[in-house]
């Protein structure tokens, strides 16, 4: 009955890499991780499938007659099938980000985590790496999966495009956006420490506020200039292939501003960075 151990090396100590590994073990040893992952995959692929099945209705002109698809239309339809799921995925990814830390607060695990890593910031950094990598890969797998699921139907309507560099770049944008939204949730969750509060804030930022802004912009001038910088608009821009031809719009209507993908990626990253910095300050300063 001895606790003295030869299996603990005398030089065992903390490193950042080890904290990341520890966070990976934590993340992958909870059922909720697999639930949110499954939900994102099923939603994303399901939406792609539904859209692809009904895509022949897209290829109808204003007069109700079928129109001959052109390349631009094929690309637009294909990418809609691939990326629409991201808008549901982002909510679940943000929730997973929140839960990754709020679950530690609600169960008391955070005290074990911070006692083992008293510098604290490494814990948040470790979680950030794990959440981003997981969500990025999940976004990549989901958008590729969505393409594969949609392809047979889109192909049968002559509405599919092969994956070229533009399409792959947009998919990369979708994957990166899922990771960024996960980070945003993690930052907010660290700041407010509760699942309910964290989820409320992230859903507000991703859905409620953009909708409200949309309505307000009808009455208040200048709001439409803010909209592209909202997290969800930036995310949308990240996975949109920029079109070089001006969309034909009725006179008097302006096309909504869509940021160029690299700018959009910066804007979205800034949202996540601000949330993470606020979370880090709170984590560092508060009693656990």
């Amino acid at each position, binding site marked *: 009955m001895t606790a003295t151990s030869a299996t603990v090396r005398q030089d065992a100590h903390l490193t950042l890499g080890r904290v990341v590994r520890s966070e990976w073990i934590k993340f992958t040893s909870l059922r909720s991780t697999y639930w949110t992952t499954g939900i994102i995959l099923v939603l994303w692929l399901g939406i792609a499938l539904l859209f692809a099945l009904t895509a022949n209705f897209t290829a109808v002109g204003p007069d109700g007659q079928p129109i001959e698809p052109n390349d631009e239309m094929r690309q637009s339809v294909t990418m809609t099938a691939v990326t629409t799921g991201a808008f549901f995925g982002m909510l679940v990814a943000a929730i997973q980000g929140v839960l990754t830390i709020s679950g530690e607060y609600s169960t008391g695990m955070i005290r074990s985590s911070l006692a083992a890593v008293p510098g604290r910031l490494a814990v948040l950094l470790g979680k950030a790496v794990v959440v981003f990598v997981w969500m990025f890969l999940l976004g990549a797998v989901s958008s590729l999966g969505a393409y594969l699921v949609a392809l047979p139907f889109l192909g049968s309507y002559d509405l599919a495009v092969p994956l070229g560099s533009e399409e792959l770049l947009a998919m990369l944008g979708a994957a990166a956006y899922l990771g960024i939204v996960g980070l945003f949730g993690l930052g907010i969750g660290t700041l407010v420490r509760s699942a309910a509060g964290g989820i409320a804030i992230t859903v507000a930022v991703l859905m409620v506020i953009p909708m409200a802004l949309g309505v307000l912009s009808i009455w208040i001038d200048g709001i439409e200039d803010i909209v592209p910088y909202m997290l969800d608009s930036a995310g949308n821009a990240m996975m949109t292939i920029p079109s070089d031809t001006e969309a034909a719009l009725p006179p008097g209507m302006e096309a909504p501003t869509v940021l160029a993908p690299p700018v959009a990626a910066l804007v979205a990253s800034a949202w996540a960075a601000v949330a993470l910095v606020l979370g880090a300050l709170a984590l560092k300063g508060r*009693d656990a």
Partner: protein
Amino acid sequence: MIEATALSKRYGSRTAVDGIDFTVRPGIVTGFLGPNGAGKSTTMRMIVGLDRPTAGAVTVNGKAYREQRAPLREVGVLLDAKAMHTGRSAYHHLLAMAATHGIGKQRVNEVIELTGLSSVARKRVGGFSLGMGQRLGIAAALLGDPATLILDEPVNGLDPEGVQWVRKLVRHLAGEGRTVLLSSHLMSEMSQTADHIIVLGRGRVLADAPVDEIIAGAGGATVRVRTPRPDLLAAALPEAQHSTLSDGALSVSGATAEQVGEAAARSGVVLHELTPVASSLEEAYMALTQDEIEYRAGGTPAAVEETR
């Protein structure tokens, strides 16, 4: 070695720990006693950097805990509340904790074995009983084979076999030269386990001394005597205090059993009983803390009834 200097913690207007100084030395078991709300758990959380002191400082082996390069090897801590995710298995909880320091699976399995958790290690912690959770907390504290152990009410919820196991374990660890600080409300357990006692009351140190001294300090041992002539015996022992117990026996303090016996022989008093009575840690503790109790129970139900 744990050293606290002028350590204070306020939560809003409430002072939980009020400028305490103490040293917890290696090689012995130090017991941390005090009424509910005295500040024991708060002090322990400050030692491991979970709560930031409002004033003063505390170091472990000369360094602030937050600056330790290998915290788990320096200090193993069991906190009062469960500090683990209910959705994770005991094995993965320990594995994740160990991973931060590059401690491997082998050690994880070792502490699981040591704490008797082998059969439930793969089950989720949410379903654990109080005692199983407590064992897992102790397993986590032992992971890094630490030089210092801080255990907040470790026997809370343990079965008698577990209580005995903890007692042997901490005695053994102290015997190896480690520093052990543990709190408990079980006085009999504490008197068997600890060598040294620190008593807190309302955030202040009320006593900090070896167990024997604490006990002796509270009036020390008494002698129980039965004699048909208590008046003569009392006269023969002018230095000692005495009181009559409810069963008619005499309780003498300030004299040893030998002194009482010799005094009786000198003055020809017949004795029917002469028993040295060691005072208990519990009595000493009660005497020390009677003015420092914040959360006092309302007495027996009958007594409560009467005061209405």
